[in-house]
């Protein structure tokens, strides 16, 4: 990788100021994605700002929910007893990211802001929309891992963050700090579908901003389930996955949130699946009806229609886990 300057500020304010140092400046958290991108010349940087000293690395109770610092490692998140008890889908998603080594280094903020895993994006030679080019190579190329939803825009990537999906399902809010102070953004509005204007990014975070916290609302009496369909058990991004969060009214579902992962350029909420659950008991039949509703309107590309079936499987199993019925 190209040589870069390095600075390690100790406050968020200094870190945000350092992002304006001139040239290309990138925040460095766990570095598990950034360093690989720099080594592969997917991008270059003049300065890296290590934000791990500057950002909060604690999980603290807040308003009946939790406030999770962006510098919390995936390992710490997945083993935190409050997270496991209150937001088990989030803990499970974190526990399945990468490998122990990656979870020891990788952070909440880094996972949510990681760049696409698209193999064209990751190759220096393929100058796609996301790198300032004028095409998405997956359209006429190898697209078995690309989007089946939200793929009308210029780029057909799937969002690569495992934490983003439960974050949306639990109704999390992201705290973003910049030169003009802080703003709070609902997780569902943080991630953006690609347009010609924003295609180089996957979210609304500005170049002079840092994601500092994830705020999870008080869980109340929710039940949740999370299921990732994987090509192999270890060490890979899931091929499709789902987080389901429900509240119950007696034996029937009162409200539901169904969010799909690895199928669209953002975490993909399925309101059709949610409607199929509300008012029904959490049975296998309901779960299958919701799964069928979840994949309505899917637009597979030339090589990824298989994702429809595994997405249904993920939805069924996440619902049954929320029901406490998963085998």
């Amino acid at each position, binding site marked *: 990788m190209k040589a870069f*300057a390095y600075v390690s500020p100790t406050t968020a304010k200094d870190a945000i100021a350092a992002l304006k140092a001139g040239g290309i400046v990138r925040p460095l958290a766990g570095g598990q994605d950034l360093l690989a991108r720099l080594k592969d010349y997917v991008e270059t940087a003049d300065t890296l700002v290590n934000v791990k000293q500057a950002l909060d690395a604690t999980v603290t109770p807040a308003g009946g929910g939790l406030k999770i610092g962006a510098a919390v490692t995936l390992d710490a998140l997945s083993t935190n007893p409050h997270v496991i008890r209150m937001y088990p889908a989030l803990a499970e998603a974190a526990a399945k990211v990468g490998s*122990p080594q990656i979870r020891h280094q990788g952070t909440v903020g880094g996972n949510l802001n990681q760049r696409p895993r698209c193999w064209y994006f990751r190759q*220096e030679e393929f100058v796609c929309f996301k790198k300032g080019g004028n095409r998405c190579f997956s359209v006429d190329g190898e697209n078995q891992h690309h989007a089946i939803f939200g793929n009308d825009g210029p780029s057909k990537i799937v969002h690569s963050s495992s934490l983003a999906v439960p974050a949306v399902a639990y109704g999390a809010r992201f705290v973003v700090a910049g030169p003009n102070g802080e703003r709070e953004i609902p997780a569902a509005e943080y991630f953006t579908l690609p347009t010609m204007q924003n295609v180089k990014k996957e979210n609304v975070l500005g170049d002079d901003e840092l994601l500092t916290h994830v705020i999870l609302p008080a869980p109340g009496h929710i039940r949740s389930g999370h299921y990732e369909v994987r090509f192999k058990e270890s060490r890979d991004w899931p091929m499709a996955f789902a987080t389901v969060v429900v509240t119950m009214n007696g034996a029937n579902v009162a409200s539901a949130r169904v969010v799909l992962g690895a199928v669209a350029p953002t975490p993909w909420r399925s309101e059709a699946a949610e409607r199929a659950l509300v008012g029904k008991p959490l049975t296998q039949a309901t779960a299958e009806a919701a799964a069928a509703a979840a994949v309505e309107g899917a637009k597979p590309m030339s090589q990824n229609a298989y994702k429809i079936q595994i997405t249904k499987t993920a939805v069924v199993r996440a619902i049954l886990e929320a029901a406490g019925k998963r085998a």
Partner: protein
Amino acid sequence: MAQNEDDVSAVSRRDFFKTVGVSGLATGVLAATEQQAQAAPGTLGPGPVPVRLTINGRPYNLHIEPRVTLLDAVRDHALLTGNKRVCDRGTCGACTMIVDGRTVYACSTLAIETQGKKIRTVEGLANGGTLHPVQEAFCDKDAMMCGFCTPGFVMATVALIEKFPHPTPAQIRHELNGNVCRCGTFNRVLEAAAQAGGVNHG
């Protein structure tokens, strides 16, 4: 196709050497002009800077660029070549070191970030002529073929045993899941880990 690939990689290499060759010069020019005026306080590099690492309990005063990874610092500057550089992308685990008690991919960690931390490499395991129990177990179980992944696997197993002194088979698989053996000696590695930790079929 092969010809094309060669062409592409030849261009990349040329660009790479150009970048490296010019970077020293460019650094000086930039530092003297706009870069320095705007850089945040405490900014280091991009040229070599002093980096003090504590590896296996010993201090190493290195003079390296901020971009140097922990792996390259340990191998090429501290000259401890036990842990191997294979994928250099946080995928294979051959570079696995233990930093402040936790396994990390040294290839995907900047050396400059590990100042003040306790870095352990495979060289730090044996006590004189006496092998660490994990090293003994790898020998007893013949848990290697070509041996290139072994230092990383040994470090991951040491971290496993320190976390779970008597690990279950599931814990062994989970904690060693970040390392790959292209020869496919996985079963022997799992047996070695089980031996090092004592048998627990829990």
